[in-house]
């Protein structure tokens, strides 16, 4: 990881503002050590750093939209939403949509007494 501190001096700046050497990269390094993450190439490192910076913003959005919980950096912060869903969820679509009472049900549970 040491050579990754080399600053990019060529003109072909990435679409993303260069995150190397920023506070976000420092947070990313902490994330990597906390969750035992490592990346095979420099490109992958920079790619994941870009995703991480977007997920930090996403956590802030989630915090605003979900103020009674605590949101922040988790072990999934270097994954895009699609990667996260593909790797860590897994409920199949039924009838072209997710969720809802699925077909394979023998019986609907009898209604229980819940007065009071």
């Amino acid at each position, binding site marked *: 990881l040491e050579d990754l501190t080399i600053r990019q001096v060529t003109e072909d700046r990435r679409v993303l503002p260069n995150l190397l050497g920023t506070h976000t990269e420092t947070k990313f390094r902490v994330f990597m050590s906390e969750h035992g993450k490592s990346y095979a190439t420099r490109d992958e490192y920079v790619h994941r750093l870009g995703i991480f910076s977007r997920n930090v913003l996403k956590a802030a959005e989630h915090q605003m939209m*979900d*103020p009674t*919980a605590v949101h922040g*950096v988790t*072990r999934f912060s270097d994954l895009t*939403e699609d990667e996260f869903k593909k790797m*860590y969820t897994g409920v199949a679509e039924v009838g072209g949509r997710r969720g809802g009472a*699925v077909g394979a049900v023998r019986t609907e549970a009898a209604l229980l007494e819940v007065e009071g």
Partner: protein
Amino acid sequence: LPEDFDWREKGAVTEVKDQGKCGSCWAFSTTGAVEGAHFVSTGELVSLSEQQLVDCDKACDPKDKKACDSGCGGGLMTNAYEYLMEAGGLEEEKSYPYTGKRGHCKFDPNKIAVKVVNFTNIPLDENQITANLVQHGPLAVGVNAVFMQTYIGGVSCPLICSKRKVNHGVLLVGYGSKGFSLLRLSNKPYWIIKNSWGKKWGENGYYKLCRGHNMCGINSMVSAVATQVSS
């Protein structure tokens, strides 16, 4: 119905597990429901095998032949119950341990620990879900996991969370009447949900989601099983 209820306190819930990089949440939700039902009927808590479902279960939804259980590629808890009823039952975790990848089916009918004899969908009604949870044990549920990627703790009650994009299978183990939330100094009634992303995620592997609004579709895919001890 008690104001607060938690099957963990009664010993009906196994340790938080970790599905790893594999879309097998449906298998963990299924084993959690079967483990709970087995405990309710026998008083014995047995950790059951998700890997048997990942490797061997290829059951499809009777109404949608494209909605089939396919290991790390996803599945449905109700399909898994159908598979278990046809296969004869579920092995213990220790006889068929989890690998996090789909492999050849190594199911051994002589090692069945628990049989599934029936299952039902629970009506969308919040009170019915609560009553069935107390009566039958932990329930397999689906939820839209969009806010779970960044969740760290507290009672999650997003202002907007689609009820229709249920994409994650988890286990409802209890509920609380007042979940104190640091950020808003407020109390909210909540569900206690066991997840399968390891103990370091969320609150020791658990997720608290506010009750009463079918939040993130939590009420839309609830099922319970009935088990029988393997002779």
